């Protein structure tokens, strides 16, 4: 064997797999399809001001239309960050006739760990028990107790700032000190709590440090809130700032960039993967390496693509697909701007610094009492209070000195609540390969079929009503709100496709994120998810990855693999 383990992908979970496996003594090859980005050296726009960029930070709209038709829809995609997102024209994907899906991608060392929103929430047994309770999807083979110690481990390492609230549906973690609510948010928190004691507005739990982690060379947040450019302080969790240096420190990690994995070779005699094949994207040369373990961490959809493309005589429907469910039951949170309100009465208040997180209102529907209107799961809100600035002038009449003077000062406070609804797993939402079309590396295009259903629409309808009620109760003047979800993918929480389950006949992975069909294959990114919950999933991916690594190492040492 060339390596003890091969990790496909270098993003949030790939970095964790590399760290855990190398620290356990294994030699690891990490294969990343994108270019190398070095921490503190390659964050090219990190310290730039708008006036130092060719298009004043706005970007070349013509270029964006032509080359970044999807990525430009991401609010974090700007002239500052465009080099941290894929070129859509060079990385096409297919969609079904009734599908609108915005697939936001970052193909580079570190993957989307460089551009992620950093929101880090534990899932609860309301989430792990959701499929069993309402019958959608397949039951998770794990519960919160299985994952709790791994959440502890991950939070302690990556650094999550947050406020403990004692909520069963949003378990507390090992938090660094929280970032404070601003004056308006504090008021809204208290107003909501006084009328609805079961509803909790709290500061976002975010993987931004409020205390330095000197042992890892990471400094505290500088309150710039330009994280997606890359942070040389190492103040938010990314592969570069955190897991990669830990893995490299062991001396057992080999990293290859600009190499896209096309397939895994399956040996029917051993019932294991015998090799990983990839294409060097610059030279188009094909390479192969072997290992005792393979961890797929290419990102939910790309990991599924690798499995679907790994066909063999023994597994003609794709690797680890004896169940036939590979590619099915993909999900993304249905999200929309549920309410925006003007918040009068706070004109004498302002703030300083750019807090890199908003607030959340934890789920409160369909917990111990089924009170969802037309839906059986949950929704939560993310948002915050902010003051308007010069961009508000675009919506206002006026020219001249008085107009300019008005724009010189902070404007009206607003509060926004964006609803995120649990997405029910459905077989019809699925990934397949379009073998009639290939990309620049000769690989068949991934095809996405996806639509939200009545459950999500009903949840967002109730979210709109509730959000308006809460902001009104806090003295706000609601000026807009929506119950229509954005296109699939816009929550950037796409997941599923290689779901975990009890039964090999109806699921791809077992409770250790290990393929039922292939003992040395572990899929520990978003592909493994059996349900979506309504909170951000990355922390759970990390905890599942750390847990799977420990299990894999144990199995290896016990001779089970």
């Amino acid at each position: 064997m060339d390596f003890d383990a091969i990790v496909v992908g270098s993003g949030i979970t790939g970095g964790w797999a590399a760290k855990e496996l190398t620290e356990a003594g294994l030699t690891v090859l990490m294969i990343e399809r994108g270019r190398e980005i070095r921490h503190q050296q390659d964050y090219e726009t990190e310290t730039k001001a708008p006036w130092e960029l060719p298009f004043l930070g706005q970007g070349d709209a013509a270029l964006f239309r032509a080359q970044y038709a999807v990525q430009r829809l991401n609010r974090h995609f700007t002239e500052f960050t465009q080099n941290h997102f894929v070129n859509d024209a060079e990385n096409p994907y297919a969609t079904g006739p009734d599908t609108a899906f915005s697939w936001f991608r970052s193909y580079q060392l570190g993957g989307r760990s460089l551009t992620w929103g950093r929101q880090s929430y534990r899932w609860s047994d309301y989430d792990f028990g959701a499929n069993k309770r309402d019958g959608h999807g397949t039951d998770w083979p794990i519960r919160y107790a299985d994952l709790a110690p791994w959440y502890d481990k991950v939070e302690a390492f990556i650094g999550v700032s947050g406020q403990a609230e004692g909520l069963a549906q949003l378990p507390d973690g090992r938090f660094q000190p929280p970032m404070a609510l601003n004056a308006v948010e504090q008021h809204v928190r208290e107003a909501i709590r006084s009328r609805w004691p079961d509803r909790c507005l709290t500061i976002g739990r975010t993987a931004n440090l409020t205390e330095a982690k000197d042992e890892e060379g990471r400094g505290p947040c500088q309150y710039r809130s330009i994280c997606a450019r890359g942070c040389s302080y190492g103040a938010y969790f990314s592969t570069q700032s955190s897991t990669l240096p830990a893995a490299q420190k062991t001396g057992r990690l080999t990293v290859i960039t600009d190499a896209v994995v096309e397939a895994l070779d399956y040996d029917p005699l051993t019932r294991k993967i015998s090799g990983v094949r990839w294409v060097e994207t610059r030279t188009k040369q094909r390479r192969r390496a072997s290992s005792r373990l393979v961890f797929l961490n290419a990102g939910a959809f790309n990991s599924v693509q690798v499995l679907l493309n790994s066909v063999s005589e023994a597994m003609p429907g794709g690797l680890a697909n004896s169940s036939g469910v590979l590619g099915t039951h993909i999900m993304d949170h249905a999200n929309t701007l549920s309410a925006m309100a003007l918040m009068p009465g706070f004109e004498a208040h302002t703030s300083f610094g750019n807090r890199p997180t908003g607030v959340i209102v934890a789920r409160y529907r369909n917990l111990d009492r089924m009170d969802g209107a037309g839906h059986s799961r949950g929704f939560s809100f993310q948002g915050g209070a902010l003051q308007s600035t010069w961009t508000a002038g675009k919506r206002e009449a006026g020219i001249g000195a008085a107009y300019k003077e008005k724009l010189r000062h902070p404007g009206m406070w607003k509060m926004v609540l964006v609803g995120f609804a649990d997405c029910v797993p459905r077989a019809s939402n699925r990934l397949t390969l379009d073998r009639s079309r290939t990309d620049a590396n000769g690989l068949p295009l991934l095809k996405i079929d996806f639509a939200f259903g009545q459950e999500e629409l009903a949840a967002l309808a109730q979210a709109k009503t509730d959000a308006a009620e809460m902001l009104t109760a806090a003295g706000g003047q609601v000026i807009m709100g929506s119950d229509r979800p954005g296109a699939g993918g816009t929550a950037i929480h796409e997941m599923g496709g290689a779901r975990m389950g009890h039964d090999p006949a109806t699921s791809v992975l077992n409770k250790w994120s290990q393929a039922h069909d292939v003992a040395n294959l572990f899929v520990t990114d978003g592909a493994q998810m059996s349900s979506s919950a309504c909170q951000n999933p990355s922390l759970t991916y990390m905890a599942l990855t750390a847990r799977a690594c420990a299990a894999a190492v144990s199995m290896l040492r016990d001779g089970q693999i």
Partner: protein
Amino acid sequence: MTATARGWNRREFMGAAGLVALAFGLPAAAVTLSSLDPATAPTPAQRALFREVSQLVLPRTRTPGAGDVGAGDFVLLALAHGLDGARQPLAQPTPALLPHLRPDGTLDHAAWLEAELNRRAGGRFLRAAGRAGILAALDAEAYAEGRRDHPWRTVKGLILTGYYTTEIGGAQELRYELVPGRWEPDLPATPQTVAYSSDWTAVDFG
């Protein structure tokens, strides 16, 4: 003849910015241009018009105005490239806009504004007295109750972008702090409190 030779290119833009700097004692604007298709390059008259219009929207006060810092040229560049939806085909163009539609259904905002302001001025807008009043009337129409889309809104929005993202607009007229270093959630505000152009959340959602 190449597009660069005939067109409106980065070097030419920098030359214009340099003239602005000479005229007003300002640092040259940081905006640079990539090559524009000759067909989309603005005329000298349009450049003069957009400079003046920018200055009327955000005039020189305690700090230089938008025209002073080159916002007019930025707007023309942004319109040509289609920032803020400027190159999206119009769904229901009014009769007044029809003469200025490109074959693809998008509006040539520069040509439209030039014609519109000249019409309102009864001749060349740049030579008219009361230019601020003429522009204010157009502005009032564009933002009238119930009105949602108007090409002037696009142009004015880009003037604001072209000003508050320059060093003068962003760091002299407003305040700019790349590294705040701390989060202070509740500070007293007065009518004199000056906003931060580096409050990215406010810029995005405010």
